[in-house]
């Protein structure tokens, strides 16, 4: 049990740290770095604690049930392979955190940077630790998204934005493929559990969907690991801050693709298709990356293509398959992480200290930063695969695997030669890196005067280089056991233990190495003079850039074609869209009722009282009048709209819905006031629109009238057909029968709202809060139309004296209504559970109490006397409602379970005291806050308009004076 919890903590701690970091102030660089570093260290300690268990070849599992019916469980699983990889991620992460602290500028928002870094670590660990292949895809996509945010961290630069977008599009496309392939695998195997999938290799390989699954799977892995032809996003991603490049785009995230290839090799691999595609693409990438790398002028660009090339090498090894190749692949993942992360960090140091990354400008840096130079030279030697360094060992293994017989096809025969050519190019670009950056004459036109970097930047590099040397000299006692465990975790317990030796005697791989080094040195010497003056890419081929093709495709797919299609099939005009909406609704209603529609033979009818008929005669007249006048006489339309609303309210009261009647009445009041306030900013429509009298406009109106009539008739017939049907037993009966016994209230409507269906209500008040905040936000930047900025004509005509006495008696009465309305509100609230009323009605009443004060006097008068903080009311309302819901958890019940009890208070008597009332209190506070916020925000516009007017007058005066 303890192990399960530790594993869950290991997987989730980075996310927690990420959320925590987001709350830090912008300048909390030190605290952010410490939090991140300690989180990663804690993770590493947990991993160390699992060491004994992992060594015995076992795996640790933790299961959290999520949606069992869909087999979707959040399960984590740690075995030898993921243990090694997770340790790698955490180690490099700690070094990057230390490095970034000095590298990043003080002006950057560092807590945000570290928060993203932690989120990435969490997502990456999620990929490694997922025990469910669907959850794995979720984490996979998460790394893409966080990578997008990190590449675009310096979002002011266009290169960063473009690089981020390209990276996201490519990796997310691959992620989609991966998701599909995982769904297919789940379908084939019948389970999404990783262990079961890995054990079902034979079933998957013999299934007729195997090829489709494989291609989709490889699409995911290849895009992530920047394999040809998807490699071009990685150089674009170099616009990211260098710590990100070191961490995500060389050491860890891009390895997720090869991780997946290795992990699923037992399930999907060991077929000719796998060998051809994976080994073929790997070799192609290895070669292309190495060749292009030699011709790059940007230091990070060179390293990026070198990374692509090394990823190709690992991919090829995964393609070969078999214990030795898998062993070599895992080994090279670790080695590459060590030397490439240190090289990226060195590139960052050089960039930081000299102000440029252009190798044509750099040179002679060994004289000004000797320590950094020595470290970089050792790391580069490891990258080139020189003896006594870790890169040599895994490269030898790769050569050995390339020589090995696989299936005798032409690809297999060509492998050794391709490997040597790629090796030669990697030696050549390593030479170029060292010679051009560290040797030669000291440049004079650098943007900054270079010197040794701060220790915190050099330390991580030194550590990684030390690892390269130690592993290179003493592989057997440092990393060999962990690699063997990891290989066994992938292949199975039967995998033979591999022994890493530095000296195997003079054999094929060694000869290949020697040839590669000699040819590479010659390549460099032959091209050293011409490359700096050439284009950024190999001769001839630099015209054919994958990035250019991609840009063209992106333009077509995301801009030209959508716009062309949009022009054909859609419109920006609202009216046709609404027309289509109404007609579609009509069509579906008619189609679904066609043939089966009938009106009950024994209709349930009530004799209509004459008053009801009279009422709706007025109501219908109001509605039609509003429709008729809404264009030119908005005020008249508004009044008659209110009339229709009041009739609706009376209908509710008549037909046994007192709660609805109360709420409708109150809402009617605030809606009318709101629209009236809005009318102030809607300039009067003065001239009649001439076009309206013409035939086309008449035809349009007639057509819309027919549509409206069809819709209205349809809904009327439908309403009549249902209303006259006898009532069948339904869920409402259950609510009626149980409201008192289960919910402790006699007003069933209220009990439904705050108890039985409280979660729905919770959602609705959230919507209300969001809408209110949106209204508030929209009004903060509101610019009224030019015609309505002036003082309204009515106000100009009345003198100042008249304005103070304006409606004097009513305004005094309205002021006195304040306490009365508060009392009414409280009354509505407390009786709500048993009698009509409740939080909604009470909240709106309270809002009206404030509103009346604003109406009776003016904004300044009210706000000098009452402090209304609507946003806080809303916040507290939401908090109370949430806390009530969470309170149920403490007692072991589901969210928002209510508890009801009557309490005897002296004098007052029996008082209902249900926790549902607390929830209703939250509803009350939120509804009140939201309503007041919206009304006050719009009422404040006249104050703002006054200020605007004053400012403009001042400006005009100044102009005149000038």
């Amino acid at each position, binding site marked *: 049990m303890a192990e399960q919890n530790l594993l869950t903590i290991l997987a989730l701690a980075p996310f927690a740290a990420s959320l925590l970091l987001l709350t830090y102030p912008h300048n909390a660089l030190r605290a952010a770095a410490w939090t991140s570093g300690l989180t990663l260290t804690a993770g590493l300690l947990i991993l160390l604690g699992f060491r004994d268990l992992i060594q015995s070849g076992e795996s640790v599992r933790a299961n959290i049930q999520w949606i069992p019916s869909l087999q979707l469980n959040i399960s984590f699983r740690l075995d030898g392979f993921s243990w090694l990889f997770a340790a790698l991620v955490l180690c490099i992460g700690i070094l990057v955190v230390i490095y970034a602290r000095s590298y990043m500028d003080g002006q950057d928002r560092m807590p945000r940077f570290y928060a993203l870094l932690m989120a990435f670590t969490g997502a990456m660990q999620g990929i490694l630790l997922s025990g469910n292949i669907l959850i794995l895809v979720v984490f996979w996509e998460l790394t893409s998204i966080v990578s997008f945010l990190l590449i675009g961290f310096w979002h002011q630069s266009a290169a960063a934005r473009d690089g981020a977008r390209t990276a996201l599009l490519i990796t997310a496309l691959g992620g989609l493929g991966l998701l599909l392939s995982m769904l297919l695998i789940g379908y084939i195997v019948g389970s999404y559990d990783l262990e079961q999938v890995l054990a079902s290799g034979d079933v998957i390989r013999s299934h007729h969907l195997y090829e489709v699954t494989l291609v989709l799977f490889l699409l995911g892995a290849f895009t992530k690991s920047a394999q040809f032809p998807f490699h071009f996003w990685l150089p674009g991603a170099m616009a990211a801050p260098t710590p990100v490049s070191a961490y995500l785009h060389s050491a860890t995230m891009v390895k997720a693709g090869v991780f997946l290839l290795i992990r699923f090799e037992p399930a999907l691999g060991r077929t000719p298709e796998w060998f051809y595609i994976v080994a073929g693409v790997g070799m192609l990438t290895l070669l292309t990356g190495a060749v292009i790398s030699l011709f790059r002028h940007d230091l990070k660009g060179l390293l990026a293509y070198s990374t692509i090339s090394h990823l190709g090498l690992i991919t090829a090894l995964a393609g070969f398959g078999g214990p030795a190749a898998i062993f070599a692949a895992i080994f090279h993942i670790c080695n590459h992480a060590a030397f490439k992360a240190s090289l990226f960090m060195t590139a960052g140091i050089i960039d930081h200290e000299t102000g440029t990354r252009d190798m044509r400008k750099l040179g002679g840096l060994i004289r000004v930063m000797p320590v950094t130079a020595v470290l970089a030279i050792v790391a580069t030697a490891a990258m080139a695969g020189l003896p006594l360094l870790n890169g040599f060992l895994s490269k030898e293994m790769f050569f050995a695997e390339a020589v090995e017989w696989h299936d005798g096809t032409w690809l297999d025969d060509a492998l050794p030669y391709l490997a040597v050519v790629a090796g030669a190019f990697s030696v050549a670009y390593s030479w170029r890196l060292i010679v051009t950056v560290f040797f030669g004459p000291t440049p004079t036109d650098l943007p900054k005067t270079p010197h040794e970097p701060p220790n915190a930047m050099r330390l991580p590099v030194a550590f990684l280089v030390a690892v390269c040397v130690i592993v290179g000299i003493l592989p057997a006692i440092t990393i060999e056991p962990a690699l063997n465990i990891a290989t066994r975790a992938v292949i199975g317990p039967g995998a033979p233990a591999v022994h890493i030796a530095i000296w195997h005697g003079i054999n094929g791989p060694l000869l290949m190495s020697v040839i590669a080094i000699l040819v590479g040195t010659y390549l460099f010497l032959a091209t050293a003079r011409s490359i700096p003056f050439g284009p950024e890419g190999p001769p001839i081929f630099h015209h054919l850039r994958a990035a250019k093709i991609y840009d063209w495709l992106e333009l077509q797919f995301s801009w030209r074609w959508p716009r062309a299609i949009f022009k054909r099939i859609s419109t920006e005009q609202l009216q046709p869209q609404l*027309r289509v909406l109404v007609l579609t609704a009509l069509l579906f209603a008619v189609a679904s009722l066609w043939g089966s529609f009938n009106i009950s033979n024994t209709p349930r009818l009530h004799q*209509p009282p004459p008053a009801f008929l009279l009422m709706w005669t007025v109501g219908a007249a109001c509605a039609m009048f509003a*429709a008729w006048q809404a264009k030119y006489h908005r005020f008249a339309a508004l009044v008659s709209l209110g009339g229709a609303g009041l009739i609706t309210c009376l209908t509710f009261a008549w037909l*046994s819905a007192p709660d609805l009647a109360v709420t409708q009445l109150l809402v009617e009041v605030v809606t009318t006031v709101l629209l009236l306030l809005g009318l102030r900013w809607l300039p009067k429509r003065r001239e009649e629109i001439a076009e309206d009298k013409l035939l086309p406009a008449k035809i349009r109106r007639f057509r819309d009238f027919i549509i409206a009539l069809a819709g209205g008739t349809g809904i*009327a017939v439908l*309403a009549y057909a249902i209303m006259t049907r006898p009532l069948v037993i339904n869920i409402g009966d259950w609510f009626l029968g149980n409201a008192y016994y289960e919910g402790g209230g006699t007003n069933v409507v209220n009990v439904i709202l705050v108890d039985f269906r409280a979660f729905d209500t919770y959602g609705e008040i959230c919507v209300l809060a969001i809408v209110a905040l949106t209204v508030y936000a929209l009004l903060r930047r509101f610019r009224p139309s030019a015609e309505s900025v002036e003082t309204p004509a009515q106000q100009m005509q009345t003198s100042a004296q008249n304005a103070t006495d304006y409606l004097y008696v009513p305004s005094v009465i309205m002021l006195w209504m304040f306490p009365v309305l508060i009392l009414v509100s409280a009354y509505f609230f407390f009786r709500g559970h048993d009698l009509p009323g409740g939080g909604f009605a009470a909240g709106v009443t309270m809002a009206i109490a404030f509103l009346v004060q604003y109406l009776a006097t003016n904004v300044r008068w009210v706000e000098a006397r009452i402090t209304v903080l609507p946003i806080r009311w809303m916040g507290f309302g939401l908090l109370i409602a949430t806390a009530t819901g969470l309170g149920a958890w403490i007692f072991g019940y589901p969210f928002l379970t209510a508890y009801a009890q009557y309490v005897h208070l002296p004098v007052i008597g029996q008082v209902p005291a249900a926790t549902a009332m607390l929830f209703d209190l939250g509803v009350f506070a939120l509804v009140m806050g939201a309503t007041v916020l919206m009304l006050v925000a719009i009422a404040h516009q006249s104050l703002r308009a006054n200020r605007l007017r004053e400012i403009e007058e001042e400006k005009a005066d100044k102009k005149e004076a000038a």
Partner: protein
Amino acid sequence: MELILSIAIGVLATSGIWLLLRPRSFQVIVGLCLLSYAVNLFIFSMGRLTPGRPAIMPKGGFVDPTIYADPLPQALVLTAIVISFATTALFLVVLLASRGLTGTDHVDGKERDQS
């Protein structure tokens, strides 16, 4: 009674839909309000009409559900009323902002002949 109410719903809906299809934004707002009355009444009427028997239960004892009004549509409509107020407010603000920004109250932000 049923006939009157369904005709009333029909009139409200017709006026609402007609206004919804009009070009001026204030017309659309009034149309949405009318339509929301119609829809609220429609949903409410799904529980059938029961004059004079609000869903207020006795404290204890046997409850005969057939004699009370159906509370469920009422609960649905209650929140709908408040939400429709919120959307009206939102739409009103968008209308005002659009009027200020574009200088016209046409729903598309430009007059028909300008397009």
